């Protein structure tokens, strides 16, 4: 499949100015902007990085560039949420979608391992879509814990937090320049562990209409906090109560005004 991806990238590079994907060299693998003439043998699909953020940074910096991105299902969902918030211009972005394997889907407990490209013009899908994997069993187990004990559970988890902001920094849909987690009004600065529950509940609340289930926050957490259990739960609630599913429909605006305020902060991209 990787050959097919590389061939597609080579083909698209004749029409586009550059394509965001992962590049592996002897120093390691990380996001890179492939351009004509680059060695496409170096293009890989692992590990995972927030490519929606890279694409956003590059679109803002190079306002006339026509770019592409090699994206998995969760990457595309993140692109959708970023586009709703004026952080991605979908008209200037071509998506080369890549399906995840069943094993990858199981590892991520991913319900939607194939990218949905219906709303991305000029996009291509590579690979055979596989069915969604069952949800994280810990979420169901957790749901059995009485409310009174849940507080103690999360308090114990968040006491380990190093306040690295890594869960935010690696998040493919966190972009605000003025972040509530850094606002002394909400979270007292300089404390370790950060204020419980403010720091983590603000993050969780912001995830309600954004989390696309990529699980990169949990992998970046140096304190091994099971962040996605919390985010899966809030996403479930939002889906049940409001019927909103992050990343599903580029034309459906996020339900909370909070995110509209965010959009006003950085609205230099118009679509």
């Amino acid at each position, binding site marked *: 499949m990787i050959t097919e991806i590389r061939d597609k990238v080579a083909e698209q590079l004749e029409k586009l100015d550059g394509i965001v994907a992962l590049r592996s060299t*002897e*120093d390691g693998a990380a996001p890179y902007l492939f351009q004509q003439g680059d060695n496409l043998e170096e293009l890989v699909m692992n590990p995972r990085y927030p490519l929606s953020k890279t694409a956003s940074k590059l679109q803002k910096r190079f306002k006339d560039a026509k770019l592409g991105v090699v994206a998995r299902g969760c990457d595309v969902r993140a692109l959708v949420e970023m586009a709703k918030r004026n952080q991605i211009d979908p008209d200037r972005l071509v998506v080369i979608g890549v399906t995840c394997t069943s094993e990858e889907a199981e590892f991520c407990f991913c319900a939607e391992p194939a990218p949905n490209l219906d709303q991305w013009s000029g996009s291509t899908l590579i690979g055979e879509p596989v069915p969604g994997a069952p949800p994280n069993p810990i979420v169901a187990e957790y749901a059995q814990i009485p409310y009174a004990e849940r507080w103690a559970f999360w308090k114990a988890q968040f*006491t*380990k937090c190093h*306040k690295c902001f890594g869960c935010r920094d690696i998040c493919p849909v966190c972009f605000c320049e003025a972040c509530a987690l850094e606002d002394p009004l909400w979270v007292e*600065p300089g404390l*370790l562990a950060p204020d419980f529950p403010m720091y983590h509940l603000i993050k969780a609340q912001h995830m309600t209409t954004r989390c696309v289930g990529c699980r990169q926050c949990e992998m970046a957490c*140096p*304190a*091994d906090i099971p962040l996605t259990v919390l985010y899966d739960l809030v996403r479930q609630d939002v889906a049940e109560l409001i019927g909103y599913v992050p990343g599903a429909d580029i034309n459906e605006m996020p339900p909370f005004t909070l995110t509209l305020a965010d959009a006003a902060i950085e609205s230099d991209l118009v679509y």
Partner: protein
Amino acid sequence: MTNSIPEFEDADCVLITGSNTSEAHPLISTRIMRAKAKGAKIVVVDPRTTQMSLLANLHLKQQPGSDVAWINGMMNVIINEGLADDVFIEKRTEGFDELKAAVAEFTPEYVEEISGIPAYDLVAAAKMYAEADAASIVYSMGITQHITGVDNVLSCANLAMLTGNMGRPSTGVNPLRGQNNVQGACDMGGLPNVYPGYQKVSDPDIQAKFEKAWGIRTENGGRKTGSGLLSPVTGLSDKVGLTVTEMVELAGSGEVKTLYIMGENPLMADADINHAKKCLKNLDFLVVQDIFLTETAEIADVVLPGASFAEKDGTFTATDRRVQLVNQAIEPVGESKADWEIINMLAKEMGASGFDFSSPEEIMAEIAALTPIYGGYSYERLKNGNVLQWPCPDAEHPGTPYLHKDKFSRGLGKFHGIEYKAPAESADDDYPLTLTTGRIMFHFHTGTMSRRAEKLNKEVPEAYVEIHPEDAIKVGINGHKRVTVSSRRGEIELATRVTDRIKPGVVFIPFHFAEAAANALTNSAFDPVAKIPEYKVCAVKIQTTADPVLEVCNESYKSKN
């Protein structure tokens, strides 16, 4: 470190002392917390409550400077409870009788008198450590920065050997080095008594090896190069040089005329910096090579702009002896240059040969050729993602994840009977509080880098002193009032954090803040062997200072009424 960072995960017990691990070495605390999640026991011995101590199974709050006493006390318990590893002691060590005699008087009750650690807690900690299959000791500057720094380190080694926790995975004595390449700076001979790889300057064979390699003595006699600027070196010195603390002192008395300082900031880092500043100002000539105009650079005669880590290639050696490649990301800022290029240029200016390197890779080849523990390193090997921990003597050697596997470097491990000595300065009527200094998560060392990082400085923008509520009441602090903290050497003004995270009678100040430099207060009394100053204990007093805002309010109130 005798062992590797990933090994902590599989320890059965981790004893942490003098290290605020989760703040000063966060990614090491990750591994320790994983060990705990797998069932390991974590013991923290520290006068402060830290994030790590809150997560530990047991936290002992000792009086600063009492480390030899409580470690001797633990060994006393271990021997009396029959928990010592007799086989290891028999096969791998010598001097056990000396140790046994030395720790005999350190009963838990006696240790409680000295250290303030409750006797039952000490017994519990000793059992937790000694009963574990693989127990690891973690320490940092809280153990070394004392006039008994060497004694403290030897005590840790005694404890590990007594229980056979050496030479196996997830055991050992593991000092966490505080700066990204402090291990490498030591490995590379940035020390007065050794060449690279800890080869002694006083050893004639070693001296001859370096004289030959560096072209000081050639086959047919002396050295040929020189610009006439200086007297050519005709043989390497076998005299052990001065440590930084001695250099500063002798600068004050005029024996040292010149210092050449690369990327260090002693006027923030040194103990008793008011004195250090006086000494350095007495120099005839001071050269500082740095990326910012540091407190030290401000008084220099010449300042040379170096390039930052992001602007050069090279290698750093992490605390677990792991040598890793540093890769250049951008061009040096302005006209700044990589430090290796500056030294190359200066040496050439002085007419010296042997400084014609065109890349750090070439320098590493010379290092490998002359340094047995680095013998197997090359950029080629490091580029392939190999994790290579020294000793790595040749190109085929896989590196050494943990030391002392079958024998110690000296053969048998030697127990040292260590007597307890009180700190150089204790709290008294004039200076009733004990000051201890250290780091916080959001800043680094003298603050040169972290205070210029917006997001880090925003977390903690100013210096503060941590004080226990009982002491705060005595001093008359309420809320976040500003105070003056003074010692016999200086005084600083700063904010307060009243918190029961600190032991009553003890106060803590992070040393990252130039405008309220903790080291204006610290005592430069140092360990006789390691010459390390006693940053972790000195006597201070605290007075509340006038609050300018309150004063304005009061004035306006008075004038209106």
